């Protein structure tokens, strides 16, 4: 049994950077990666704004050194890039020296290819190799292969927009229980017509830059991203004399049990998730220095989440909080992972990233997100992720074990 769950490496790719350093640079410069869509041909292109990763699929294939006949979906491609960065950042050269697993998260899986060739598959065999890469587990299998993880515990979680937070949670539990010595955790979701149209029918896509926690918020920007963390047991950290970036200190998952897509008015599930995470961490609300909120900028989420935060912390005692989704969009199943990376960057650099685009205070409560880059000694960061199916997850990161 390992007491601590150390984070020894991380990797990220998003609309504001192709690696962790570029992401950090954009975060501190308040540089958002939201624009008109360029890589998907959709009739909604003039009505929505998205966060796209700069690389095209062929550029990603080239970086990974894949042969032309490969059948990686974009989810697999960006996932492999971020996971490899995490491994390199952790200084791992022999992945199988310790019992190493991989827990990834995705909601889209290989839908990007399926939606391109759905009927074409029946007519010609040119792209049929992608049929078998549609299912959600495929991108994870590909990432495992890229990392050289074999004969091990590899799995995928899909609980909509809380997926990657749950992957981190499961990874931490596997380390604590001694099932694994090391586990790569995170998530990957690429942009797809399927999700664009899905969120469009729900009428929660903003036609301009998203404005989390703003009274006049109009909905979310979709984004694509992948991010992974390397979690290691105390024993591995000691044996390898590892540089520790932070710890997974607490986690909680709860279900809102209210509605398939909407959050309850008072954020019952979110409140429970935050409370559970505090309990696992052995913290009280006072111990949290910064909350990286889910903050999708939909009418429903920000109200429900804000109320839940007030329930947990008390309206007068809410620590600095911000949503970083205005930078990169809502990256769905990857959100919990990329925001974990941002949370750890916040801890490492003692800095709180601003909640961009905010203008008007919400009238339902008096809490206001952090609007400017703020330097503050941070010991702990709480990260929230909520999804369809009432799924609510909170992870707490700390500097000390």
């Amino acid at each position, binding site marked *: 049994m390992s007491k601590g769950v150390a984070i020894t490496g991380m990797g990220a790719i998003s609309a504001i950077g192709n690696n962790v350093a570029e992401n950090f640079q954009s975060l501190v410069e308040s540089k958002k990666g939201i624009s008109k869509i360029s890589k998907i041909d959709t009739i909604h292109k003039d009505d929505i704004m998205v966060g796209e990763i700069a690389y095209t699929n062929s550029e990603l294939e080239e970086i990974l050194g894949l042969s032309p006949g490969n059948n990686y979906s974009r989810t697999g491609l960006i996932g492999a890039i971020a996971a490899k960065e995490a491994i390199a950042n952790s200084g791992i050269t022999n992945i199988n020296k310790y019992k190493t697993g991989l827990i990834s998260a995705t909601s889209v899986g290989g839908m990007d290819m399926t939606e391109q060739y759905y009927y074409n598959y029946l007519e010609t065999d040119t792209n049929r190799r992608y049929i078998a890469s549609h299912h959600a587990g495929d991108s994870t299998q590909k990432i495992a292969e890229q990392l050289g993880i074999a004969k091990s515990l590899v799995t*995928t979680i899909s609980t909509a927009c809380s997926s990657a937070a749950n992957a981190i949670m499961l990874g931490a539990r596997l380390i604590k229980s001694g099932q694994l010595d090391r586990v790569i955790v995170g998530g990957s979701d690429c942009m797809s017509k399927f999700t664009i149209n899905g969120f469009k029918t729900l009428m929660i896509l903003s036609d301009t830059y998203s404005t989390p926690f703003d009274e006049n918020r109009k909905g979310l920007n979709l984004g694509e991203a992948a991010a992974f963390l390397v979690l290691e047991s105390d024993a591995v950290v000691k044996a390898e004399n590892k540089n520790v970036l932070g710890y997974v200190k607490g986690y909680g998952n709860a279900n809102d049990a209210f509605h398939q897509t909407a959050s309850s008015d008072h954020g019952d599930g979110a409140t429970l998730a935050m409370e559970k995470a505090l309990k696992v961490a052995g913290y009280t609300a006072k111990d949290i220095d910064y909350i990286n909120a889910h903050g999708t900028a939909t009418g429903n989420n920000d109200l429900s989440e804000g109320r839940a935060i007030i329930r947990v912390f008390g309206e007068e005692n809410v620590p600095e909080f911000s949503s970083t989704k205005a930078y990169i969009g809502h990256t769905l199943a990857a959100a919990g992972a990329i925001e974990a990376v941002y949370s750890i960057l916040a801890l490492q650099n003692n800095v709180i990233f601003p909640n961009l685009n905010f203008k008007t205070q919400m009238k339902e409560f008096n809490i206001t997100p952090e609007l400017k880059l703020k330097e503050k000694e941070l010991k702990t960061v709480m990260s929230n992720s909520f999804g369809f199916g009432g799924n609510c997850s909170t992870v707490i990161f700390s500097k000390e074990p």
Partner: protein
Amino acid sequence: MKKVYINSISSITPQKTFDNSEFLDEVIIHENQVIFAVEPKYKDYIPPAAARRMAKGIKMGVVASKLSLQEAGLEQVDAVITGTGMGCLRDSEKFLGAIINNNEQYLTPTSFIQSTHNTVGGQIALELQCKGYNFTYVHGSNSFESGLLDAKLQLELDEAQNILVGGVDELGDHTTKLNQIIHHVKEENISSLDVLSSKTKGAVFGEGASFFVLSNKKQASSYAEIISVKMYNTLAQNELSETALHFLKENSLKAEDIDAVVLGNNGDIEFDGYYNLLTSGIFSNTQQVCYKHLIGEFNTASPFGLWIASKILKTQTLPEVIKKNNIKTSSFKYILLYNMYRGENHSFTLLKSC
């Protein structure tokens, strides 16, 4: 660490398996390469208005979970964990088809909402008003086993006392067609009785939903104790026997200690070699049990293997139709399950009578 028990089982498959008072007493001989689930009367469990909005997979999942709760004598659980390889396929196909056919216009959200992989898990939480832990695993043939391992960890550490764990996958017409053109589905019509000896490529595709209440408290209805679950993303054929023996050794057992092996072979000549290695090798003198000829192949077919193993251990009987060989077994104490799909995502599950 607490012991983990299977306190109830329920399975909806292309056989009439949802009535636990029977154990494959009557078998349906399917003659097709795509076989559909025999459905219970949904209206006995789901209000008709709600049922109309639900695709088959959601209905099967919700009903299987209710049957399982009923048998365990529970009204609530601490957590709901679901596995699904393909998610809510029919809604995904419906929404994607509409996007393409109507050029992204005139779409309604229902099928998108229900296409989300965790719809069944979320729906169960909603029905039960269960605010506890709710995870959905989507990792091919290890989707269900991931949930099993997760539940086992929580129960062993007493973080939860009763957990609903299940697996569900439904057939979708277009996806089936796609799997046919790449020969993952058999080309020929074939009888259930001939599938496993077919010597042809591909599998018969099926669908179903299974749910179990796992608990760290044994009760009268308990079927078996879950000793261990282990997954492997890759495994070469030449590593399989050694890995199986190592798995048993970790649990202080030898091949001879196993009273039955429940195998996931599906009659695909390309991949059944894995299973044949075990049946002609380390388990050649062990009672061998197969089930996919009856229900077909799908990512969450393996929980039906767990249903069978649970039944064998509780009733100490073994129906002829699932015997691959005939070994005189005086009693069933330990059962090992092995499953994989197309050479990937292998799992061993070890059960003990209780």
